[in-house]
């Protein structure tokens, strides 16, 4: 069997005295679309942020594509990585945020070009061509010279997806990508994500969109109070939840 894209073993994370993750284990295979659901405060966003080391785990092991994230193993000991090594690891992991976090002083095109230009030192013409293709792919060919403030929430989130794709990541993390959107704009973002899944991108999606999880997800994880309560095929978990807490949560959101 191939190396899992993401392998998390016994992840613990605390902020001060509150333990946000209390031993989380899961595996995501290449090409898999894993959806993570759960009530707010269940630790699902924190889990996602640990995967690209925006949060540092307190214990456990977290590997992406077989490599420990944020640490090096040498001589039977863990060594913290330098900032530049962490930056290098993050290039292969795209992230899309709930609140888009587009660079407001740059146009849509410049937002997408930024990382290839600065991080990969691509030639300007090549970066521009790639950015135009990506914006076209997310349906924003006519919005390239607009600043984020001139775009709707759905358009901004699609630019953010194109920006993450510009580094050709092997894994995409979505942190509630549609939660800050007006209801009528959710569809356009989910369409882009559906397209990505169809193209074989490995994706971990923290979401409240149960319809999307059921239709696009290969697996579904239900988290509560820092633990994975239930995991399995989305249809299975959503239709026949085994655990009481899953049932209680689903009865509120479905």
């Amino acid at each position, binding site marked *: 069997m191939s190396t899992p894209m993401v392998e998390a073993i016994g992840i613990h994370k605390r902020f001060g005295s509150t333990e946000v993750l209390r031993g989380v284990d899961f595996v995501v295979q290449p090409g898999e679309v894993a959806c993570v659901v759960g009530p707010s405060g269940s630790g699902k966003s924190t889990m996602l942020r640990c995967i*690209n080391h*925006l949060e540092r785990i307190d214990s456990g092991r977290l590997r992406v594509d077989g490599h420990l994230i944020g640490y090096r193993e040498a001589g039977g000991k863990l060594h913290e990585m330098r*900032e*530049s090594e962490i*930056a*290098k690891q*993050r*290039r292969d*992991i*795209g*992230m899309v*945020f709930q*609140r888009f*976090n*587009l*660079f*407001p*002083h*740059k*146009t849509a095109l410049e937002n997408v070009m*930024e*990382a290839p230009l*600065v*991080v990969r030192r691509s030639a300007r013409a090549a970066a521009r061509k790639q950015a135009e293709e990506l914006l076209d792919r997310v349906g924003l060919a006519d919005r390239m010279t607009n*600043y*984020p*403030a001139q775009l709707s929430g759905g358009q901004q989130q699609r630019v*953010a997806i194109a*920006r*993450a794709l510009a*580094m050709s990541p092997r894994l995409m993390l979505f942190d509630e990508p549609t939660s800050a959107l007006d209801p009528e704009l959710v569809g356009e973002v989910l369409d882009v994500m559906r397209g990505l899944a169809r193209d074989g991108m490995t994706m971990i999606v923290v979401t409240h969109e149960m319809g999307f999880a059921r239709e696009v997800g290969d697996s579904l994880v239900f988290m509560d109070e820092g633990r994975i309560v239930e995991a399995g095929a989305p249809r299975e978990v959503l239709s026949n939840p085994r655990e009481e807490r899953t049932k209680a949560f689903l009865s509120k959101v479905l």
Partner: protein
Amino acid sequence: MTASSTDRDVRSSEPLDAVPVRHPGRWVAVAVLAVLAAMFVHTVLTNDNFRWNVVGTYLFSAPVLNGLSNTLLLTVISMVIGIVGGILLAVMRLSPNPILSSVAALYIWVFRGTPLIAQLLFWNFLSALYPRLALGIPFGPEFISFDTNLLINQFAACLLGLGLNEAAYMAEIVRGGIQSVDHGQTEAAGALGMSRAQTLRRIVLPQAMRVIIPPTGNETISMLKTTSLVVVIGYFELLTSVQRIYSVNFQTIPLLIVAAAWYLALTSVLSVGQGFVERRFGRGVQSGPPGPTLLRWRPAT
């Protein structure tokens, strides 16, 4: 209910034809201001003590222009030292490295906490403390050494005093600007694989500029006038120049008007420049520099 007479043709999509609200208070204010302005102009023109001919004589005279060029030179160089130093100190202050952060805090504490005049005098009299300055290995041999008084002449002492003091104030302004940028920006840049330095230079600082520029404009305008403190170490600029002239010919008021006119002119140029810079860094954000409706010097966008 009967339709009122204004209800005719409401669907014609013609612009509303309504009587605007009257502002009688504004007309009263205009009348009062007009009388005051007339009184002011009258007294300025008729009171011979203003001696406008003297103002005219000295406005472009060599000593005044000399002082003016010194004021400009000191302001520009001191502000460059202050801004560059301020950015450096702010970045150090916010660094996760506790040593860098503490050094910056110490610098800011010392340079904001002691009077500028004392700092100017200190740099000027540095030779009393260290007659020679040398480059070499600490506690070891020296490669070259200089006479302190030759290395730090009056002009250099002015720049050190004004620039290093300004850096401490600019550091706090820049720090405020950097901290005003949403943390999500840093996270997004980090998630793309950008380093801390790249994130600061390409993402955070350009956005922080919007917050940094208005107080920096203040600092620059303030510096324009603070340069007059260099008189304590025997250097001269605009205000010192006119003081030297009126201490001889006793035309105090006309010469102060000369200085004030130049300061106002420079401040006006700076304000216009600030507006341009603010719009440059306001890209992507709708709000530009606000202007009062009466004194709008920029075209409406």
